[in-house]
């Protein structure tokens, strides 16, 4: 393990997420490796994953938006319909990271996590688009659905045997899942049979919705955290085309349709955490970052009412902390970057934007 750092701001505190508070703002905490493997197989931003690989540890900075979110989660009443939280902000300010931080809190509290790492992946660049087996006007995306089911399985293993299906699902003439089967079987069905995987996803989500607030006692009780990154993809446009070369609407995709049902608050016993994203979005201008711009009218009406949480660039203290962290990990190799003037240059060139700063330091 590393020698203790001499910085004023301690760079890594291995804290349980429950104990994070405003006093810790600006400090880094380490994600336990087991948690990273289980919870975030594809959830973290790609550059952060590279950083984890390089530094051999995943350190996340505690920042006010995440703290705000966690405090809401602590105080919410889970017998009522779920609250929708929307993280919004400029590009590269840390929306996905804050979402992951809050999700880690939920995971460490033992919630069941439904995490869509990037909803934009479901509306663009899909190689296979099959007409749905169950409904004629819809389209399936078997690859994305089965991938998601695999991840879901990894994340929520301990729940799979406990939860049971509430109705019978018929997939084909020969395959069906009976009522009362464990959820794990349903998921295996989806993973093995790619053709019906999208419908399996829909079924899983439906089951979870029904059972989330249901049992409030004992063993069956669980809280459901629905985390969607890039939620503006659900109501935007797709870049997929049907066979007759017309554009696909998001409703016509099974996955999107089911996810939209999840976004409605007609269930109880959980929370909906979402983050907007412009970088992956289809046909949206780069300067758009507000919820009204990115969600569009339809999306805004659907998501309303929600709790907006704004994420912004680093302030002085946070920048200082990030800079010291990189220094500590010997990431800033260039001798000039260790001096005061170098630090001022970094502040100017990145304007204290987290992602730009990270990219800048990567080649120093």
């Amino acid at each position, binding site marked *: 393990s590393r020698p203790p750092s001499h910085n004023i701001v301690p760079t890594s505190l291995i804290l349980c997420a429950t104990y994070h508070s405003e006093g810790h703002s600006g400090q880094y905490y380490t994600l336990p490796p087991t948690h990273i493997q289980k919870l975030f197989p594809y959830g973290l931003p790609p550059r952060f994953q590279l950083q984890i690989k390089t530094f051999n540890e995943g350190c996340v900075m505690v920042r006010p938006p995440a703290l705000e979110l966690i405090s809401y989660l602590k105080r919410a009443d889970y017998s009522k319909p779920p609250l929708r939280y929307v993280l919004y902000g400029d590009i590269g300010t840390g929306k996905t990271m804050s979402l992951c931080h809050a999700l880690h809190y939920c995971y460490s509290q033992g919630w069941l996590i439904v995490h869509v790492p990037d909803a934009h992946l479901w509306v663009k660049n899909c190689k296979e688009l099959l007409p749905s087996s169950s409904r004629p006007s819809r389209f399936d995306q078997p690859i994305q659905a089965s991938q998601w089911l695999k991840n879901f399985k990894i994340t929520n293993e301990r729940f799979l045997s406990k939860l049971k299906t509430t109705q019978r699902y018929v997939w084909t003439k020969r395959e069906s899942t009976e009522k009362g089967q464990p959820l794990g079987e349903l998921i295996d069905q989806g993973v093995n049979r790619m053709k019906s995987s999208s419908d399996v996803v829909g079924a899983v989500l439906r089951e979870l919705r029904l059972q989330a607030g249901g049992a409030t006692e004992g063993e069956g009780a669980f809280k459901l955290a629905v985390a969607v990154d890039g939620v503006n993809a659900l109501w935007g446009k797709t870049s997929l085309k049907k066979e007759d070369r017309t554009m696909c609407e998001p409703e016509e995709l099974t996955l999107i349709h089911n996810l939209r049902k999840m976004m409605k608050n007609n269930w109880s016993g959980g929370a909906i955490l979402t983050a907007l994203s412009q970088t992956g979005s289809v046909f949206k201008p780069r300067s758009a970052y507000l919820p009204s711009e990115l969600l569009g009218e339809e999306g805004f009406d659907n998501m309303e009412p929600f709790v907006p949480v704004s994420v912004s660039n680093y302030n002085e203290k946070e920048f200082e902390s990030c800079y010291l962290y990189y220094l500590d990990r010997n990431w800033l190799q260039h001798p000039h970057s260790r001096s005061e003037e170098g630090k001022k240059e970094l502040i100017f060139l990145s*304007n204290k934007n987290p992602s730009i700063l990270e990219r800048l330091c990567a080649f120093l």
Partner: protein
Amino acid sequence: MWICECGILQDVSLQCAKGCDVVFASCLSACRRANMAASGCRGVRSILWKYGSYGNNLFVSRSKMVPQLPLRQIYVASSLWKKNLAAAGPQKFTQEFIDKQVEEFEVGKRHLANMMGEDPETFTQEDIDRSIAYLFPSGLFEKRARPVMKHPEEIFPKQTAIQWDAEGRPFHFLFYTGKQSYYSLLHDVYEKILAIERHQDKMRNKGLFTSDTKQILLTGSRWLLKEEIEENLVENISVQDYMRLIQLMELLLSMPYCSLEEEFILKFRKQLEVQSSKYEIPALQYDPQGVAFSVADGRRKSAKASITLRDSGSGNITINGRNYLHYFPVLQNREQLMFPLLFVGMMGRFDIEGSVEGSGHSAQAGALRLAISRALLSFVSEGEVEKMRQAGLLTADPRIRERKKPGQEGARKKFTWKKR
């Protein structure tokens, strides 16, 4: 080339002036035929010798030729017959011609003034230039290629008149030196030197000799260049001649009473232009709140930028209403913006509000950088200004897109070179 049987030199053409038929069937002949026949020219020359004929692309069929004379044809290049234009030298104009041009110019000037509705009496050269630019607008980049109406003195090169009389006797006594105006000038200068020395002796005799007489002001002017002196003398002089002349003038200047010949000396000095292109430091203005700010412009390629630099800020930069991080996603452009502030060491001190338009992102960044440097001049000391100038922060980048030339793909790229 042929000589037809009547002995007249004939070229490609068919018919000799005298009428004997020499029919010519080379590839060139068709057009020449028309020309030559029309002009009935004697300039067409062909030499037909008495030996055998050996012509590749000539074939002659003649009717009425004397059959027993064998013919040999000799090739002579037609460039021999063309006038050697280069050997003639620059075009010579007679004095009457020049006078006529001057007359026409004056008349034309009055016409132009009437056309423009101005008074012909007070119509100056500037007015002429203005009117011509108005009547004949030209988009040519080369200013010297545009239509111009100037006094014939300025247009026709100065020429020497005939320097000897009808009997061949030269007018000037120094004609046989070859550079009569130059040597006569040297003689004049020496005369003046002698005159000053005589004046000096006179003053000494009277006892009024003083060394501190009125000196000629030579600052802000320079000696005429060799080319300018050649232009004045209308003859060529060598470098050594020029240096000798300057030496003599310096000698003249070194004498105490040279102010007597001030007018003569100043004819050989040219006033240097005032440095009007020097940039003034923009004035420091103050806000109602007392915050100092300065405004400056900058240009690069075809991008124009204008900024307001405000003191006691925190390093925010807004360009065209957007944050500079959004306006310049490319790192290089942000570095360009940073450089003036970094160089002067005032990084977090200023707030910048700028507007820029035109050209591309790099040019806009360059224009903004120049504007920031200029605005910083008013916040910075003299020594720093010099340092900035040496760092190249204050120089406007003169590079501009090079024109595409005909016969090439682009400015420099040529079409594919084929060996044959």
